[in-house]
């Protein structure tokens, strides 16, 4: 609670908004300058409008010559013609371009920061929400702060001018108008606070509604929705949720009504009181003329609008402040996994000593516990075990996607933390269980980044090795074929098995010292699996390979097999040794082999 208060203190709000302006300045200093100029120019423009009205009404009230009044109107017309030239150049050209530049600049930095961050951050739902939010909103918040700053300057300039005009008519009326405006500031701040509470109550419910919408919309769920009766469950959920939303609406309805009514009363007072006062002065005391009366009336409405908008802008800063805090937090967040200094020599060995690790937020369960293992160059290592035994976690530690809680990983005898991070990761290639195909060309997907012509041979080689060669022949655009239909309806949508082959080719292409294959054959049919095993076997002559599988037929030729259970290594050795041991591994292997034995 105290933290929340601190975050929204005026000092912090100001600090965050200034930070945001500085942030924009970094990419588009011209925009910051123009926003200030634009605010001033518009403020002057509004003032000119006010003075024009005053002069016109004065002329009318005084019963001046028509020529004089016509002169006032024509001067204003000429002024508007000129002002609008600037206005449209600014909004339709300069502003559009500079916004796009800002968008690009901000995102470039956001992207860089996103990739730098620890992957463990993704496991923390609170951080991840803020993170996605920061990525999503940084630009629009920046634009919002800029816009409101421009408008704030504009409204301030205009209300000063108007206050001057009103004082020139009648000081007492001006004081009443300003006083009531002050009350409105208070009321608006109350409304804003209520609105914030309202969104906090309604947002989780809205999210749930969106989820239900998604389930009915997406193809992913279509089969289950038809084959089973689960759609009824979801419709019930929808009803429940709607009732909850209604409840929130009812709760806040009363508060809204109270505030709105107060607002209305204030508005009526704000127009009524000065009107009656000035009417009194015109008709009874005669201290104000007819022109002055018209000006004051006009001014009251303009003023109440100006002040209202001014308040809203200031309140917006408050809101911006809270969100900018999140963006700042994201941009200034330092990854815990820091790069070391030393450059990384070719891999000779990798040694794990007493490795223990828990995922953030799940500290009670050791994902890995006291794991020791040795890998030498050229070895084929298999890691087998139940689901959730810690196999995939281990590989993530090897790539320093996470750092262990205790114990160490030695690369050529030295702790991997001492090496440069990007070089280290460059020495490792991995095919994850949940690999991704990018909406880019096939060649770029294999190259894992920018593709140039001189890579062609290597890319083809990698695809050949991953047994994608046949499919490649059939693709009319060959390596340039765009993958996925994300942008291009003529893009190629590969099947699951084909995608996996591309992911494997990506690993081969990388020419790394250590290759990690996490269940590489899960989407492959038997023939493809066989061919892939052959390919890996031939590749393994020069490379170190770690593969993770629960098909023990794939792993039996490994130099060493580590059997994991609940984060611990329970058995290790060659296939023959483990079979001789007749422990869990032998049990699992026999179970799988059984069917083939009895049948063939």
């Amino acid at each position, binding site marked *: 609670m105290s933290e929340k208060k601190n975050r929204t203190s005026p000092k912090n709000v100001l600090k965050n908004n200034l930070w945001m302006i500085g942030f924009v300045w970094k990419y588009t200093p011209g925009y910051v300058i123009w926003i200030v100029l634009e605010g001033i120019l518009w403020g002057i423009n509004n003032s000119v409008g006010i003075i024009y009205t005053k002069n016109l009404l004065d002329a009318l009230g005084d019963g001046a010559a028509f020529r004089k009044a016509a002169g006032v109107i024509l001067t204003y017309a000429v002024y508007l013609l000129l002002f609008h030239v600037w206005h449209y150049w600014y909004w339709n050209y300069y502003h559009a371009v500079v916004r796009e530049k800002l968008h690009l600049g901000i995102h470039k930095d956001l992207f860089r920061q996103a990739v730098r961050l620890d992957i463990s951050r993704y496991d923390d739902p609170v951080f991840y929400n803020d993170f996605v939010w920061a990525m999503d909103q940084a630009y629009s918040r920046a634009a919002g702060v800029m816009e409101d700053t421009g408008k704030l300057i504009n409204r301030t300039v205009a209300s000063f001018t108007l206050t001057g005009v009103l004082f020139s008519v009648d000081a007492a009326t001006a004081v009443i108008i300003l006083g009531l405006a002050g009350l409105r500031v208070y009321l608006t701040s109350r409304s804003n606070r209520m609105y914030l509470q309202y969104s906090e109550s309604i947002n989780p419910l809205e999210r749930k509604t969106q989820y239900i919408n998604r389930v009915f919309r997406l193809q992913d769920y279509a089969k289950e929705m038809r084959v089973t009766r689960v759609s009824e469950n979801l419709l019930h959920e929808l009803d429940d949720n709607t009732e909850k939303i209604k409840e929130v609406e009812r709760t806040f309805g009363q508060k809204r009504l109270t505030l709105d009514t107060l607002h209305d009363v204030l508005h009526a007072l704000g127009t009524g009181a000065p009107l009656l006062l000035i009417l009194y002065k015109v008709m009874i005391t005669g201290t104000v003329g007819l022109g002055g009366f018209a000006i004051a009336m006009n001014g009251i409405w303009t003023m109440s609008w100006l002040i209202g908008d001014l308040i809203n802008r200031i309140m917006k800063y408050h809101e911006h402040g809270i969100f900018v805090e999140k963006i700042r937090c994201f941009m200034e967040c330092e990854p815990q996994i820091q790069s070391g200094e030393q450059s990384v020599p070719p891999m000779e060995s990798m040694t794990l000593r007493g490795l223990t690790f828990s995922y953030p937020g799940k500290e009670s369960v050791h994902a890995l516990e006291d794991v020791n293992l040795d890998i030498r160059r050229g070895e084929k290592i298999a890691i087998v075990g139940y689901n959730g035994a810690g196999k995939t976690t281990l590989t993530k530690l090897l790539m320093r996607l996470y750092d262990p809680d205790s114990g160490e990983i030695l690369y050529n005898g030295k702790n991997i933390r001492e090496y440069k991070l990007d070089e280290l990761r460059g020495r490792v290639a991995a095919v994850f269980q949940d690999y991704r195909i990018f909406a880019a060309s096939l060649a770029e997907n294999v190259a894992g980044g920018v593709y140039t012509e001189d890579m062609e041979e290597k890319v083809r080689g990698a695809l050949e090795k991953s047994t994608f060669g046949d499919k490649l022949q059939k693709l009319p655009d060959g390596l340039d074929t765009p993958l996925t239909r994300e942008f291009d309806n003529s893009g190629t949508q590969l099947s699951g098995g084909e995608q996996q082959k591309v992911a494997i080719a990506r690993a081969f292409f990388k020419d790394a010292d250590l290759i990690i294959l996490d269940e590489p054959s899960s989407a492959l049919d038997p023939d493809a699996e066989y061919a892939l095993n052959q390919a890996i076997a031939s590749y393994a002559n020069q490379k170190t390979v770690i593969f993770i599988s629960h098909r*023990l037929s794939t792993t039996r030729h490994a130099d060493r097999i580590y059997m994991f259970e609940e984060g611990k290594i329970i058995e290790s050795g060659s296939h023959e040794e483990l079979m001789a041991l007749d422990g869990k591994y032998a049990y699992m292997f026999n179970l799988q082999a059984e069917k083939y034995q009895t049948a063939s």
Partner: protein
Amino acid sequence: MKLSQLFKKKKSDKIKMPIRRIISNNIFMLRMAHRSVPGLLLCDIVVTVGAALTSFLTSTYMLRYALNGIAEGKSFSGIAAFVLVCLAAQLLLGWSQSFFYSKVYPVKTCKMTNDIRKVVYEKAAQVELGCYENPEYYDTYVKAINECTSRAQAVMGSVGNIVYIITNFSANFGLLLAIDPLLLLFALLPLMCIPITAVANKIVYNRNMEMTAANRRKEYTRRTFYLSDYAKEMRLSNMPALMLERFWEAGTRVIDIIKKYGFRVITLNYLKTECLEMLTPLSATMYAVWKTLGAGTMGYGDCVVVVNSISTVAYSLTNISDTLLKFQDHALYIENLRKFLEYSPKITDGDKPLPAGGDIVLENVSFRYEGAEGYTLRNISMRLGEKEKIAIVGHNGAGKTTLVKLLLRLYDAEGEITYGGEKISDFALREYRDAFSAVMQDFHLFALPVAENVLLRPQNPEDEEVIIESLKKSGLYEKVKGFENGANTVMTKEFDPNGVQMSGGEQQKLAIAHVYSKNNRFVILDEPSSALDPIAEHEMYERMSEACRDCGMIFISHRLSSAVSADRIYLMENGEIAEVGTHRELMELNGRYAEMFRHQAENYAEVAV
């Protein structure tokens, strides 16, 4: 989402949709709203008219009354009384308006949205799966679903808007006419700028169109940077550099497009504004000032009213045309919703009751996905016996999963599929599908309690035993028992901080638990063991065979070891059945099956000694 398509279609639709259809679509939406919350629109209109009149009364009419009153020498108390009456009216109407919009409207629209959603969702669960593969239909479908949440409210909003503008306009306009009929000419001046607006809108539309492709690319790139799906790859490859480059290119293209259209957009908007904001009010002001100061035929109060409200009238006119255009916009979206709701599913319900039992027989079944060039399945004939264990094996893409979809009548195919001698299309769909339990390769769980994920239907109090039993059989009971709320624990933490996140293998076990939760005539398992480790897989098969002693079982796998004990194995290749028989028969045949089997067995073979 196929954004470019959306816009392309929108453009052509825009030209084609006749006015009648526009009106009828909007009425369609209002009718839907009316069915759910009768009278809401009427209330909205009444309140809006009140608001518009109050606004006219307190801003324009009150001022005129006061100024003319002064000129005519009315007493201060008379004018003051009038002012007070106006303010009282404003307060009263303002309060009723606040009451309506803060207490009534939000709750009512909430009900309305919910009702419309349900209509749409129920329909969504009915249309056949093929609709998802037809991009045009899917597009309509997605848009309809997204639209149903807000469009009714939007149409009502536009109606309210137009009522407000017309009321306010009429009042102001009437007053102006009363002051001087010639002012009508000035009020009509803004109509001149409608053609300019049309051209400007078209150019802005073209400009935005040209930007769509680039913006889509930017959007995708952003996703690769923040979605956790991509996080690992983005850290271990050079993809970030490529993606950043793409992002930059796309952004630069957007800037070029803005520059390209810059001059035209500026000029047109400039002309529009001059016509609307300068020419109309200033010329009318000039005329009124001349009448007052020059000719002396217009009263001071009237002149001030003209100065004040001529812009309101001028704006109202262009606003009306903008708001009318909104209805056209609504109509385009409602069109999707209507098409969707009026669509009659191709998979139709039959009325025959299910027979007591029987085999499923496929005869010469062929199937082609809509829009696909070739047939996915060709001349398939097979028999799935009442209590038989059937294995369907074959490469990826051989058509195994498609076959399953046909059995479940997610698609209808050429040729004939019968159950107990009757065509499956003659049965009531719900009843027919209830005879099956299927675990799909790409099964999905729902953010619902574990128990409901097991049942996949609404839960009754007496279901508890079934749920426990099913979870036990699929080997998940111990795990679920450990949850704070047991089987009532919600899956995923998305909506419930006490929710649970299960591992891939556990999720699959949960999907399989559903099979145990009901009485099935047939069980279909499409690669159900791919995320299970060998021991779990073994146990799953044992238990499943046990549970399916009295029902047919069809399982699809490319791990041939699981096919060995099947009553019959169908080997599929390129959409056709290549070999049929028991394991022994097929091994003797020494064809494709035998070859594949040996490949897989090779690594285990030595142990078999």
